[in-house]
């Protein structure tokens, strides 16, 4: 019964989300990968909101990024969690928003959460991104992991589906991610610490206040300070900066 209800909610939300997207036709930036999706999405949101204004850009609240989470993110609704009553309320709100909401952001920044075969296919049945960022393909276990190859196949689906006038942003520091470049007809931009990356960070230094690095992209250079620790923040920052520059 629970499973049936879940399927019903999933299907219903998918249809309503497609209606909302058809009505408003927003520009969609998708962020996919094993980790670092939320940080990357948050930086993209920050940069795009600085450029286009707060109300023009919407992102996933929390990390809603699965079959049910993604529609909730697009329609900007909270999860009903384990309460059937809350879910009924969510479905009513979803219908109102999809069919009658007039103000809809012109840009969406969405995380795509993929764990198993077929997940990406489903999510791309809901949204068609104009730009996709692939952060990394990494595993959480100590043994050679066939799951990683599966996730790679899912990312290939994303790369293949991007339109010709779209962009695929790839983390140059991840070999699997880098190799996705040959699976798309979209323009490819790589970012990372590698010498051959299109958008590149170098001279990384860490101190008590965070990290500093030099960033170069399209012939422009700037020195950046991030008040956080970890290279993944720099990768996320770079991806967001590239999105801001090409939009």
């Amino acid at each position, binding site marked *: 019964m629970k499973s049936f209800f879940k399927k019903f909610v999933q299907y219903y939300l998918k249809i309503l989300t497609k209606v909302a997207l058809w009505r408003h036709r927003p520009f969609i930036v998708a962020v996919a990968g094993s*980790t670092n999706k939320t940080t990357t999405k948050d930086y993209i949101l920050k940069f795009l909101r600085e450029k286009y204004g707060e109300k023009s850009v919407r992102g996933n609240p929390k990390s809603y990024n699965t079959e049910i989470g993604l529609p909730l993110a697009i329609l900007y609704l909270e999860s009903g969690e384990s309460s059937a009553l809350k879910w009924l309320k969510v479905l009513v709100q979803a219908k109102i928003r999809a069919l009658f909401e007039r103000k809809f952001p012109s840009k969406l920044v969405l995380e795509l959460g993929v764990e198993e075969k077929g997940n990406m296919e489903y999510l791309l049945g809901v949204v068609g991104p104009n730009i996709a960022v692939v952060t990394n393909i990494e595993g959480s276990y*100590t043994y050679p992991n066939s799951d990683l190859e599966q996730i790679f196949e899912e990312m290939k689906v994303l790369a293949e589906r991007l339109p010709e006038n779209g962009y695929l942003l790839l983390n140059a520091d991840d070999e699997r991610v880098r190799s996705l470049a040959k699976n798309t007809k979209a323009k490819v931009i790589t970012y990372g610490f590698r010498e051959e990356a299109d958008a590149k960070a170098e001279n990384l230094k860490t101190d*008590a206040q965070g990290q500093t690095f030099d960033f170069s992209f399209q012939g422009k250079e700037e020195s950046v300070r991030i008040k*956080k620790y970890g290279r993944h923040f720099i990768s996320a920052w770079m991806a967001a900066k590239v999105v801001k520059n090409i939009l």
Partner: protein
Amino acid sequence: MTKEKEINLSPIKEMELRASRIPGVVSLAQGVPSFDTPEPVKRAAVEAIERGKVAKYSLAPGTLEFREAIAQNLEKENKFFDFENEIVATAGSIEAITATLLTILEPGDEVLIPDPSYTSYQPAIRVARGMPVFVPLDEEKRWALNIEKFEKLITPRTKAFLFCNPNNPTGTIFTRNQLHALAQLAIKHNLYILSDEVYKDFVYLDEGSTFGAPKVEPSLYSLAELRGIRDRLIYIFSFSKAYAMTGWRIAFLATHQELAGKILAVHDALVTCAPVVSQFAALAALEMAEEDVAGFKEYFRKRRDLICKRLDKLNRVFSYQKPDSAYFVFPRIKEEVLRKIAGSGGSWKFALELLEKAKVAVVPGVAFGPSGENHIRMCFGRSEKDINLAFDRLEKFFEL
């Protein structure tokens, strides 16, 4: 092994064991919340099992998803750590503490711990061949840290401060100023700080109480927010209390990557990785159990008020300070009562008398350090029914 270095079962567990052998005992001893683990957490664990995600070792520091969620949650509390290199999921906070001590201590090194403080710190230090050194808290100042006493006890063998904030068993919240002074001492004497913040979610901000921080602040101040000491600070958090997950044995530590790497090697030698099913459960706890924690806190607040009300009725037996946090109250036993019931046996004998004659299990204060003598610890994490039953029995017992 000399008597001094002997490692014994924690008095808390010993009291629980003794209690379990006496039929009908009501226990306010061990700090176990009365609640079951929140439903979304259990569901996530079941789902992870069914999807075949938990049968194999995770990476030694934990799954990437779990560590990323931890870092994102820490960020909301103004604590910044690199999830890839600075966070290690552990088998409970005691494993985090022990692995850290094994990493930083040489045999004979000293670790300063507040007195009274959590009983298991002492054996953890001894396991690492170190020596616990008690630094008395100021009872008359609501068990505040006394920085001068800390500094006086620092010797060339002192390697670290280890404390929990909020403090167990006193329920004290150490203020921002006290913690900053402690941080300055650590810098001056080149010491590590282990900050165990297992009770951070149970802070009862009553009217007029600000703990040295602005009232709008949603949580207590942590030294993990202080960037200047991140190379010597080890932040520790357990899911046991906040999410009613004591049996899942899951916690984490966060520290500067250089030290984290060294601790990771010890952690790997001890347990390989934290239980993977518990990592999935704890990930769900971070993502979905915020409301449950808030609910638990409200229950604990009510139970604190209840236990204080019941203690007020026993004011000829105990005096106490209303705890600001955690779920313990640490009443002082009035001297004449203590003598009458326990003779010269102190709080240990007193607790045994309560156990055997009133059938109420509590923890003798001396278990938490010498300054804990003449006190007992009572846990109000237990149900209201248990609290009332325990106090009905105590009232009857003290009538005699």
